[in-house]
Each structure stands twice: as structure tokens, then as C-alpha cells.
């Protein structure tokens, strides 16, 4: 357990010293959303209608940007081999990396989201639900992203490939998340969607560390 | 059964039915052709190399 916290502190320290990476992800997120009013017109009702979906899609793409770096640095400088050889089970290494990734990209995305809700004229009554979906959904992005990031280590065109592999798998998250907002507006309540999203989160929490660890072992072999 | 001339022309839907079968034939036959061509190429290459390394039956 001590070793896990040592690893976690190192991950956070590295992320803090390279905080420009996180800032870039947030900047991309904001810019991607801000482009939509220019694309579809500034009509407030239209923006309110597409707002939650646009914000979620932008969050998905922004998270993709940061994913391929989850293991890349350690792979390139040889640290990954040593992590595989460390006494910590590789599945826990993956979980720590995922947690650090979420704290440095997922969480900032959630904090920025209300600003975009305002700009996209998203009705205030669905704010709490949308924030809740981000809270449940963004960890899934990091978890499934860890599998993708581990798989493309050493591949040609890894970054683009990663999007092709991971984005189709993330469609359920998008559907459940945006559906929650709609459900509140239609008066059916978002409980079912949030439960489903929670289920997806638990499922990926159980399965993805194993798959990512397996992929990492292959990458250094 | 039905009378044949309407089936061949398929009235107003011919423009959808025939392309469906056409595209299906095209991609299915296309994949077969590609696969067979690849098989032939690989076999030729293999035979060329095996000819260069004559006594090499141990691993097959």
C-alpha cells in the first residue's frame, strides 16, 4: 500500500511540474465548445438544445488528446519496464495512473463545465445532473483510455489510432450522459441514466485495469 | 408465382434492388479476388525463397 502511495505522489508531482499539458486540454475543451455557436448560429434555444451534447462530445475529444501520454513517457524512457518489475501489481499501477490522469484532466474538465453551461445557455435545472454525469463518466474515459493508450505503445501513428480504438467504445457513456439531461427536461427523472452510467463505471473499473496491465506487459516484452 | 417482366424491372424499386445485389456481388467477389491474388503472390515468394534455401524441410 505504501508503494502505491509513493507511485501516486510521483504521478501527481510529474503532472504538476508539467501542468501546461492539463491547461492545453482545458483550452481545447473550451475552444471546441465555443466553435459551435459560430457553426450553428447563436439562437439561444438551439444552443440550449444542443448544449449538453456538444459539451460532452468536446469533453470526450479533449480527454482523447491527453490519453496517449498516459504511459508514453514511461515507455520511452524505460520507466515502464521498471514499473512492470516493481513489487506493485501492474493492475494497481494502471489504477494509480488512471486516477492521476483523471485528477489532472477529468476533474479540471468538470470544473470548467459550468462556464460552458452558461455560454451554451444550458437550462439551470439540468446543471446538477450534467455535472453528475461528468463526475461518473469522465473516470470511464480515463479507464478505457488506459487500455487504448497501453495498446498503442510502440505503434505507428499512435495518437490517431487511439481515437479510432477508444471512441467507438465510449459511445454508451455519451448516450447515457446526454440522456440524463434530456430525461430531466422531459420530466422522467435521470435516475435510470445515472444508474446505468454508474454501472458502466463499475464494470470498467473491474475490467480495464486487467486489460491495460496485460497490454503493458506485451508492450515491454 | 409473379409474372416475370415486372420482377425483372421491379417497377419503381429496381433502382434500389439491383444496386444492392450489384454492390454485394462486387465486394464479395472483390474480397475473393484480393485474397486469391495475395495467396498466389505469397506462394510464389515462398517457393522462390525455398528454392534459394534447398535443404530446409525440417521446419515445415
Amino acid at each position: 500500500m505504501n508503494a502505491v502511495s509513493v507511485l501516486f505522489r510521483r504521478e501527481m508531482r510529474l503532472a504538476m511540474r508539467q501542468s501546461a499539458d492539463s491547461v492545453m486540454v482545458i483550452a481545447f475543451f473550451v475552444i471546441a465548445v465555443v466553435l459551435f455557436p459560430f457553426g450553428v448560429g447563436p439562437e439561444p434555444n438551439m444552443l440550449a438544445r444542443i448544449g449538453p451534447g456538444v459539451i460532452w462530445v468536446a469533453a470526450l475529444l479533449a480527454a482523447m488528446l491527453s490519453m496517449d501520454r498516459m504511459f508514453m513517457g514511461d515507455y520511452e524512457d524505460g520507466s515502464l519496464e521498471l514499473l512492470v518489475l516493481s513489487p506493485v501489481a501492474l493492475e494497481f499501477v494502471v489504477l494509480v495512473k488512471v486516477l492521476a490522469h483523471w485528477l489532472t484532466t477529468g476533474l479540471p474538465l468538470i470544473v470548467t463545465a459550468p462556464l460552458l453551461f452558461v455560454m451554451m445557455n444550458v437550462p439551470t435545472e439540468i446543471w446538477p445532473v450534467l455535472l453528475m454525469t461528468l463526475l461518473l463518466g469522465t473516470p470511464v474515459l480515463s479507464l478505457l483510455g488506459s487500455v487504448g493508450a497501453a495498446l498503442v505503445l510502440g505503434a505507428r501513428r499512435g495518437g490517431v489510432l487511439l481515437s479510432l480504438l477508444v471512441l467507438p467504445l465510449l459511445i454508451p457513456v455519451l448516450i447515457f450522459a446526454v440522456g440524463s439531461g434530456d430525461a430531466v427536461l422531459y420530466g422522467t427523472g435521470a435516475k435510470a441514466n445515472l444508474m446505468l452510467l454508474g454501472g458502466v463505471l463499475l464494470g470498467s473499473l473491474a475490467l480495464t485495469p486487467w486489460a491495460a496491465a496485460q497490454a503493458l506487459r506485451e508492450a515491454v516484452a | 408465382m409473379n409474372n416475370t417482366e415486372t420482377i425483372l424491372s421491379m417497377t419503381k424499386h429496381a433502382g434500389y434492388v439491383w444496386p444492392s445485389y450489384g454492390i454485394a456481388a462486387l465486394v464479395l467477389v472483390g474480397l475473393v479476388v484480393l485474397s486469391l491474388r495475395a495467396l498466389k503472390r505469397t506462394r510464389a515468394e515462398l517457393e522462390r525463397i525455398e528454392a534459394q534455401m534447398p535443404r530446409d524441410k525440417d521446419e515445415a
Partner: protein
Amino acid sequence: MAVFSGHNIDCVRGERQVLSGATFSLESGAALVLRGANGSGKSTLLRLMAGLMRPVAGAITWDGEDIADDPHEHNRRIAYIGHADAVKPALSVTENVSFWSELSGAGGMRATEALTALGIGHLADLPARYLSAGQRRRVTLTRMLTSGAPLWLLDEPTTALDQDTSDALRGLIDRHLASGGMAVISTHTDLGLASSGLLTLGAAS
């Protein structure tokens, strides 16, 4: 008295047979030096010994037990120094060194001692991005000292080191052996260790 040995190891890497029938054995207090041309499989053999790869045939054993049976136990026994330095430029030298020593949690030297032993004690607080190649290599080598592991697997440890540091390294390895440790070292240059076997790897047929 622990025995680390491998018998008739074959290894295929990327469809290329890199090792065939490699055999070795070493006991506490002994070192094994791997020699051979580039591509003769020195690094591969070290990676097999570390457990990063599995042999296609043959087995590597520690006291008669296959190392693949309990990889976690084996991880505790080894300190592996590969080609890459695994030094993070964004962290200071001490942060780099103590991360690996705290992660393995074993009782070897303290970080500052290890840095002094390799002659870079004065760089402890410097961010690692300012280090030269030789200094980075020395930071990497501290891992074998801090880990307290009985088996050192060193892949070209003297790369980028000057003569003085190479001598210091030899002294450290000798001391490790004298205290009952083992070491497997691949090298181009002759280290001149006190007690070592030699395994020359030829190009696999």
C-alpha cells in the same frame, strides 16, 4: 546459498531466433559476464533473467523454482539496469532516486549514500534535466544500490561512464559479491571483476 541458473534457453524475438540453448548458472558471491557481438542476445538474456520476457523453451530458475511461477517474488530479488535510464527530467536527482527505492521498499542503501557512492552526491538537488549522459547513467545505477536486491542484472552499465566511475562501479560490484550478492553484467569493456564467470554468446544459428 542461492543458485540462479538457466538451462537450454531458446528465445525468439520478433520472429528472429536470438538465443538458442543458452545455459548458465551462478551462486551467491559470483558474477557472470556476458560477452558477444551486437545482436548476439546479451540484452535479451538479461531481460529473460529479469522476467520481462519468457523463453520459448528452457527455464530460468532460482533455487530450483522457475522464476515465472512467482514473478512478484522474483521482482523483489532483482535490480535491473537496462539500456534506458528511466530518469525523469522534471524531477530532481534525489526525487528520481528515492522514488525507485521507496517503490521497491527494500532495505538497501539510502538515496544520499548511493549518490555519494557513485560520486554524484553534490548533484542531489539538481533537476535531472541538467544532467549529462554520464551523470544520468550514474543516477540509474543508484537503483541497484538502494534496492538491496541480491541479484543485479546490468545491461552495459559502463555506457557513457568515464574511467574513474567505471572503476568505482567495479568496486561496488565487488563489494556486492563479497557480501554474498550475485551479478550478471553484459559489457563490451573488460571490467576486471575479482570473481566472475564468462558466457560468450554467439550469433544464434
